[in-house]
């Protein structure tokens, strides 16, 4: 089983029935996680995306490289402009959002802006998109990275694009090795993916996560795997893992 599918399942599990979730650009894994959740344990989830189609039909869905691809709205039941989704967020009606993180600190604050200084960056990254606006106002934040490493899990961010831990907000980090939740004391290990060791998880971070009781990340069932494969027959979901 590819770790992408383990991550998709772990991300889907953060969605509860009735939640209103949004995914943005460059988001193959979140798009599949949202479909998986809606097709299994969260049928009443409201699916919103940067493609602006409300509740696209999974039967007619095929994942494409651009998250805003117009075909991602196939069989949707309405158009919800992104600005309208932001209005929902203002009203407290957007439950959650998925965001990447080029750098993540121990409170799950994230940097998507630059490596080095903002004025004279060593690397100018694509940018935070909705991160700064949404991270302080959603109730659930799911951060994902396919590169669990010291370069990503840093002591100090070069730039704070988004806010992780906040009281009253659930912030989860899903990596290609493990799942964490942000707490007031730091990043707490929740589970390790099958085949990954605790050393593997800890040695690839620049700070110590909180390790108490942790479990093994559940893997998708055969039925869930088939659903994922049917939504993504072109294997777009693996593209983030090629390095």
């Amino acid at each position, binding site marked *: 089983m590819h770790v992408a599918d383990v991550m998709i399942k772990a991300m889907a599990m953060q969605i509860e029935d009735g939640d209103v979730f949004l995914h*943005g*650009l*460059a988001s*193959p894994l979140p798009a599949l996680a949202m479909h998986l959740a809606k097709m299994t344990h969260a049928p009443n989830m409201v699916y919103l995306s*940067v*493609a*602006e*189609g409300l509740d696209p039909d999974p039967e007619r869905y095929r994942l*494409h*490289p*651009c*998250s*805003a*691809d*117009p*075909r991602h*709205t196939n069989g949707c039941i309405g*158009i919800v*402009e*992104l*600005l309208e989704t*932001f209005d929902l*967020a*203002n009203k407290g009606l957007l439950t959650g959002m998925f965001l990447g993180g080029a750098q993540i600190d121990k409170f799950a604050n994230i940097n998507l*802006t630059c490596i080095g200084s*903002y004025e*004279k*960056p*060593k*690397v*100018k*990254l*694509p*940018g*935070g*998109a*909705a*991160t*700064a*606006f*949404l*991270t*302080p*106002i959603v109730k659930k934040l799911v951060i994902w990275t396919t590169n669990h490493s010291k370069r990503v899990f840093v002591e100090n961010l070069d*730039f*704070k*694009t*988004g*806010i992780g831990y906040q009281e009253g907000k659930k912030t989860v980090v899903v990596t290609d090795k493990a799942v964490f939740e942000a707490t007031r004391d730091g990043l707490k290990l929740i589970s390790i993916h099958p085949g990954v060791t605790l050393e593997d998880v800890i040695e690839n971070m620049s700070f110590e996560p909180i390790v108490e009781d942790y479990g093994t990340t559940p893997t998708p069932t055969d039925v869930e795997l088939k659903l994922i494969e049917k939504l993504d027959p072109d294997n*777009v979901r693996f*593209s*983030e893992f090629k390095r």
Partner: protein
Amino acid sequence: MKEKLMDAKEAVELIPDGCSITFSGVSMVRKPMGFVAEIIKAKKKDLYLIDREAGMDFDILVAAKCVKKVRAAMVGFEIFGLALNLRRAVEQGEVKFIEETCGAITNAFRAGSQGIPFVPVKGILGTDLVDIHVKEGNWKIIEDPFSGDKMVAVRAVNPDVAVIHVQKADKFGNSSIEGARFEDVYKAKASKRLIITAEEIVPTDYFKQNPEKNTIPYFYVDAVVHMPKGAYPTGCPNYYDPDYDEIRRYVSLCKEGKVEEYIEEFVKRW
């Protein structure tokens, strides 16, 4: 109604060097690429590009040395990689980059379209973006006059020019965007000059029979350019999908340092 149909060469003269400009679409969808080629051909200089989430439109203009400043929440090629020309230009200090956040820039376009001077925007406080925009004069931290809560006031954005690619327009400028509109209607109405490029020029009867399809009415519009495949290689709903092989080819040529080769070919496409 005045006829505004003209060729791209004529319309591009509505764009002075050094002006602020915004484009339709997002990432690899309905970007006005044909008109971007015209801007490159006309050798426009020192443009200030503003958008929510841009891609090849911004990157190729930077590569062609038409740009001095960019303000956007994200510019890139998603899973295909970074916008290499923009990245290089920003890292070498040739182009100034102001990082936006989607909720602020979209609301700024909407405020611009509404004719109001600023809009209060939630979130954002506590991030490093605040200082950048306060310094630029785009944002201010204010108190909600009713609750006293601190929040960000975002100044309305009224670009000098918007170029909006649509599926159908008539010769007077009545325009129909099909599928997702993103912030395009707000961008169009916020801008001081508006250039419409259209896949198809339809008779005005089309709008008389379907007035609800008129997403940008004629009185906002300064120029209409007939430009079939005007969004290519980005996609245009109901006309063509994004051409991912072509976009990938652009990204790999950029990686090999051969962007000039691509530009030469790109400007001849329309």
